[in-house]
């Protein structure tokens, strides 16, 4: 419909005006139609009545004129119709039907009257009204009156009404024109502003805003529009920022980022990719990615990110290198885009290789040094051992899983308590013994450190096992070698000393015999004899000493009490002579070793104790066995002269004597130490001081081993 299209494209302002004007005109016209309808219908009724009245009056008054054929008067009577403008003309017919008198309204053309008035009637036609009435007098028909009225006056009024309507319409039009300004201000301008702003926004200016001037729909619209624009502005800025960020990330990323289309043509090639492949982006973009990654990577088909794993990359110069890739695919309006993120893992591969090599070296080093490492993860309660740690424990990595509780099975029964306590205290620097599955005894030194998390909770323990068994063996051999050296030194010195005495006093003897100084002669001989005796004693003990290292009796099982009994028997004479009371305390225990040599320990200690009883009125010796922190400790305690703590170590030296005038050569305790050391034990003396008695303590771990493993250990 053309008209609606035309209206539809009109400015809102015009549409509004048109609607207002049309509304007013239509209502005016409707009002007029109503009025005219009413006027027309009432006027006809009034006209008919009026014409009937006038006609009846004329008919009544014109009778005499007809009777008296007074046409003049008849015309005068008819002329009174001038007062009734509705009547257009009137005719008075004589009884014979001829026109007796007539009247024509001034505006009417002198139309001839109708030839015959027709029957009496009141006839209402559309545009006129005819009235015919017979004129009678005294019952005699004298003629007929014919009146004809028209609607002229009605039409005149209607014309006036039309004029009013026209005038009012014009006034409305004028009013509408006047309203136009107001409308423009109230509606059009804000709307025009809105539309202008929309055009600016469309043009890219997101800072555009419309002033909100009213609280009506337009005001709300403007507000909403502003909010929308603000929102749009913010999202646009965010989009721009995130775009810039993305560009920044892509540009500065250390990983190469390449985007390709569905045909594997490169669309994006970042700086890292330029560096990685040695190819400028300008050269790369548009070409196929296959020149850089010849083996096509598996496309999963799914969108989202997937790791592809390791691929082979080719640089511009043809050099190949390993890369790790992950890719993400995106379905867009322009087709499928695939972005791959690539990392050059050459260095990592080399580092992995180096790590493998250093792990191998560590493994070898541990193997050579008998040095194993272990790690305990508190979170998973998992223990990890190195290969050497497995070897140290005599198990194979596949066939054995170390656990915390299971480990105790390895630990030597005598060391378990000590081991558990050390772990409990997290004192990760201690020594202990293990018994391997094959029964072999090994000495281990454990060191480690505790790693704690931020809260100070134990995260894991890490440390090493050092198998010191061979080292201890070597140490012992070295110790023995040193003792050997010391032995020869001591022999040369201590044997020389009495020899000097003998020789010198032989000289004096010669002199004194010549001068007959009998007193001096006696003295000289006494010195010589004493020196000779000392030499004899020394030689005996040297022989004894040399036996310790060289004579080995086959190891046998013997109990602690048996050994003590035998030792007591050997020195029974001394004990009885001094009247010493000997007491044996403590549990019995089975030892395994060279019986005569083990006996010598107690024998020498008891002998020593008897020798240094001093002035003690009730001499007493106590022999026993105690458990001290998981260790079996033997002891021989006396209530004799005791030992100055300063010389507590020196007493065990070869040919050492604390008292130069005491008998003996200072060999006894050296011998005890020698035997104790052979059984991997220690010997020490405790004494509160001179006159307070002494207590010799010693351990014999190797003699207390269960089974026959110590047979090998003890063999020297």
């Amino acid at each position, binding site marked *: 419909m053309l008209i609606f299209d035309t209206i539809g494209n009109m400015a809102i302002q015009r549409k509004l005006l048109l609607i207002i004007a049309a509304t007013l005109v239509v209502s005016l016209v409707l009002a007029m139609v109503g009025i005219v309808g009413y006027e027309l219908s009432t006027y006809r009724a009034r006209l008919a009545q009026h014409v009937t009245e006038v006609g009846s009056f004329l008919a009544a008054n014109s009778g005499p004129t007809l009777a008296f054929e007074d046409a003049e008067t008849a015309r005068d009577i008819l002329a009174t119709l001038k007062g009734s403008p509705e009547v257009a003309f009137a005719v008075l017919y004589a009884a014979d039907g001829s026109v007796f008198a007539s009247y024509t309204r001034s505006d009417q053309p002198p139309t001839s009257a109708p030839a015959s008035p027709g029957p009496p009637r009141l006839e209402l036609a559309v545009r006129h009204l005819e009235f015919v009435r017979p004129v009678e007098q005294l019952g005699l028909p004298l003629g007929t009156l014919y009146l004809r009225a028209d609607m002229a006056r009605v039409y005149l009024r209607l014309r006036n009404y039309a004029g009013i309507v026209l005038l009012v319409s014009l006034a409305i039009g004028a009013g509408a024109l006047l309203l136009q300004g107001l409308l423009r201000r109230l509606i059009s301008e804000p709307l025009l502003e809105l539309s202008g702003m929309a055009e600016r926004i469309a043009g890219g200016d997101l800072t555009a805003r419309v002033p909100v001037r009213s609280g009506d729909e337009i005001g709300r619209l403007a507000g909403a529009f502003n909010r929308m624009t603000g929102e749009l502005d913010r999202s646009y800025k965010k989009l721009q920022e995130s775009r810039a960020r993305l560009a920044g990330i892509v540009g500065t990323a250390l990983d190469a980022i390449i985007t390709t289309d569905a045909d594997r043509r490169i669309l994006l090639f970042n700086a890292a990719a330029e560096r990685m492949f040695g190819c400028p982006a300008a050269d790369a973009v548009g070409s196929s990615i296959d020149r850089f990654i010849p083996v096509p990577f598996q496309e999963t088909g799914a969108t989202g990110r997937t790791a592809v794993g390791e691929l082979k990359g080719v640089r511009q110069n043809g050099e190949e290198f390993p890369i790790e890739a992950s890719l993400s695919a995106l379905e867009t309006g322009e087709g499928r885009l695939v972005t791959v993120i690539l990392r050059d893992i050459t260095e990592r591969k080399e580092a992995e290789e180096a790590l493998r090599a250093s792990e191998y070296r560590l493994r070898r080093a541990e193997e050579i040094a008998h040095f194993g490492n272990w790690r305990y993860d508190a979170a998973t309660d998992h223990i990890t051992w190195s290969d050497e740690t497995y070897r140290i424990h005599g198990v194979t990595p596949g066939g054995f899983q170390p656990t915390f509780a299971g480990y105790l099975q390895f630990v030597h029964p005598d060391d378990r308590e000590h081991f558990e306590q050390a772990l409990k205290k997290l004192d990760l620097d201690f020594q202990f013994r293990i018994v391997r599955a094959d029964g072999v005894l090994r000495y281990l030194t454990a060191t480690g450190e505790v790693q704690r998390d931020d809260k100070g909770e134990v995260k894991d323990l890490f440390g090493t096992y050092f198998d010191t068994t061979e080292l201890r063996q070597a140490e012992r051999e070295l110790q023995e070698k040193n003792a050997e050296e010391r032995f020869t030194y001591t022999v040369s010195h201590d044997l020389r000393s009495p020899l000097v005495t003998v020789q010198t*006093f032989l000289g004096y003897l010669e002199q004194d015999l010549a001068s007959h100084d009998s007193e001096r002669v006696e003295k000289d001989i006494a010195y010589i004899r004493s020196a000779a005796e000392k030499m004899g004693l020394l030689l005996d003990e040297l022989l004894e000493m040399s036996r310790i290292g060289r004579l080995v009796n086959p190891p046998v099982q013997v109990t602690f009490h048996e050994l003590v009994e035998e030792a007591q028997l050997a020195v029974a004479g001394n004990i009885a002579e001094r009247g010493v009371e000997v007491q044996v305390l403590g549990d019995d225990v089975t030892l395994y070793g060279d019986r005569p040599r083990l006996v010598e320990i107690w024998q020498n200690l008891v002998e020593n104790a008897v020798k240094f009883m001093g002035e003690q009125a009730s001499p007493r010796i106590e022999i026993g066995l105690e458990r001290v922190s998981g260790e079996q400790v033997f002891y021989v305690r006396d209530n004799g002269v005791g030992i*100055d703590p300063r010389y507590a170590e020196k007493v065990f030296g070869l040919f050492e004597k604390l008292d130069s005038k005491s008998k003996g050569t200072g060999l006894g305790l050296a011998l005890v130490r020698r035997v104790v050391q052979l059984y991997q034990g220690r010997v020490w003396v405790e004494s509160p001081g001179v006159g307070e008695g002494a207590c010799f303590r010693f351990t014999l771990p190797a003699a207390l081993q269960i089974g026959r493993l110590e047979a090998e250990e003890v063999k020297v």
Partner: protein
Amino acid sequence: MRGEPINVLLVEDDPAHAEIVNRNFETFRIANRLLHVWDGEEALDYLYRRGKFSDRQQSPRPGVILLDLRLPKIDGLEVLKIIKSDHDLRRIPVVILTTSASESDKIKAYDNYVSSYLVKPVDYAQFVALMQALGYYWLVWNDFPYERDSDE
């Protein structure tokens, strides 16, 4: 050489050897006082005037110390070390008189500033000759700084 005789401190655990030194002093009419202690502990007690050696008249400061190496309780080398690390005692010449001809003993002794190291000869004539030379050298010819006793 001065009028006041030099006191000699002999540290010797073997009574026979002490007797030999004593006899030689008599033989050569050495008028100097010979003070004899039996072990290293006694030697240090004497030098620091502890216990029974607290009387200065009875235990005068020695001009020379004759020291054996193998001694009970504290051995000779240890005694030497203590003397030489004491700023007052270190000027006293220490002569080692021992039966040990061991290289390591000699090195240790000289490392610790010993004045002389003498090995006891296993021959009467030699021993006597040594003692004579020792007496003349240390007690006649050798000159000493004038020493006051530390607490004088």
